[in-house]
């Protein structure tokens, strides 16, 4: 077999290998893309058929957390899950509030709706002045008091 043909075949083989890689990357990308928080989320989820877990009826604008007291007006986007606490690893770190537990509460989004859950904090989590005893759904305008900090759900 002439060497030239073997060289061509070798590059064909390597090309096929990279084609395989490209297809894996495409499959991974398709799995990841519905997760991106964008207005296209709802359409994306329906198109790729991610199932009921993430489908929402209205193309909902993502919920956010707004810091009201102290009135820094800082905004925290609500991803799939945010943790609130004094620990530096929390998505909403409240290092200066000594009434906040290390891991105080968490908010997660299921089916486009946010829920809040107290993580066994010492001083409790208050939703509109009521102390949380179980996981509760959140709505726009709800106020969460954690330690001495107050956060509002905005959209």
């Amino acid at each position, binding site marked *: 077999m002439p060497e030239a043909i073997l060289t061509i075949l070798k590059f064909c083989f390597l090309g096929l290998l990279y084609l*395989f890689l490209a*297809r894996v990357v495409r499959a991974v990308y398709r799995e990841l893309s519905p997760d991106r928080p964008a207005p296209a989320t709802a359409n994306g989820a329906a198109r790729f058929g991610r199932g009921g*877990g993430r489908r929402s009826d209205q193309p909902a604008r993502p919920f956010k957390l707004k810091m009201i007291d102290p009135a820094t007006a800082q905004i925290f986007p609500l991803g799939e899950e945010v943790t609130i606490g004094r620990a530096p690893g929390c998505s909403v770190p409240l290092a200066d509030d000594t009434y906040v537990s290390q891991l105080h509460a968490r908010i997660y989004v299921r089916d486009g709706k946010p829920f809040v859950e107290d993580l066994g904090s010492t001083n409790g989590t208050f939703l509109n002045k009521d102390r949380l005893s179980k996981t509760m759904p959140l709505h726009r305008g709800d106020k969460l008091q954690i330690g001495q900090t107050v956060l509002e759900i905005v959209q």
Partner: protein
Amino acid sequence: MKMPTMSGAGPAAAARRSTELGLVILAVILAAGGYVLTALAKGATLPADLAPFAAGAAGLALAAHVAVRRFAPRADGTLLGLAVVLNGIGFVVIARLDHNLARYQTLWTAVGVAAFVATLAAVKRIRDLERYRYTFALLGIGSLLIPAVPGIGQEINGARLWVHLGPLNFQPGEAAKVTLVIFLAAYLVEKRELLSTPTWRVGPVMLPDPKHFAPLLLAWGSSILVMVREKDLGSSLLFFAVFLAMLYMATARVSYVGIGAAMFAVGATLAYHAFGHVRERVTTWVNPWPTAQGHSFQLVQALFAFGSGGFAGTGLGLGSPGKIPNAATDFVFAAIGEELGLLGTTAVLLLYLLLIGVGFRIALRADQPFLKLLAAGLTTILGVQTFIILGGVTRLIPLTGITMPFVSYGGSSLLANFVILALLLRISDEVARRSDAGELHLPPPTDTGTAR
């Protein structure tokens, strides 16, 4: 071929399965193509056993695919394809080096696929594994101890890690990898909070209560001790790294990594002074050239192989990777480097990168701490093992013999890797089943202690 139906698994699952089927078919075509290329380079004819080879490869790969459709329809669609293509490339290189070994590798691949199917069929819920944590710990430590038993244990290349039973040779340490990670995941999830709250003061550092820590140290210490006794450096490094990684992932405490690194430094220094073969590995790593005909012959031959491969390699069947001792097992990456060049080795690295990335993504998406930690631990095994052997062969770190997952010749290793693959797919399927069903009224259990 009629595929088993997936009752109500949903369009997402169907899409993942057709992705998987496409990748698996492409992987088989790649393996068959490589096999043909090797034969063409040696003579001008197609290999005589092409038909049985292609049929066998396609049969095994499709059997695995059908098993996933049947038992884990919602699982990730890329893992199996990645494993099949790595396995296929490995087989082509092994067949090119030694036809005898290739025959055994065929057999071992069949056993591996059988174990893959059996694991998927037997482990219906991952949580069931959690209940048998101490059984798994005992199994792991037991299988590490077996090779030391006189009569059954056998020493090959200076390391006593084989068990000889009739015509079969196997390394029980490979099974221990999987069972010890299952134990660690279950134990760490249970004791996570206790381990991440330091209450015991030693000088300036706070450590967790030794009471909760002792079983871990015991499991870890005995595995390391056994490994050192059996002179298997690669595996002890692997165990140590996986142990440390899982401890960190469970507790999110950097101090464990610091303490672990210090322990590793002490251990490595002691091993360097105590064992001749460790010293030899370090000297050949620092400068292999003075002993190029002696101790570092293997490493130097591997470096020459990479060098003569160049950018695109000599072509399959056209190099001379046979000059490297153990080219089919630990040094298979050098053989790939010689015949497929930088392009081929980069592709292999990318395959591993994707495999490990997908594994960690399964861990990130998992909604229960045990699933999360188990998926991350199993993926860490694959990742660290790949790093140790590829780093060793390319002289990035001192060489410690360990197999290249899915690629190297080696039955026990292939078997263990297929079981790891099956467990990862099972976890992925379980998580997808819950999130697809949209159990929004049952909030997932909190797993706030897990590092993310």
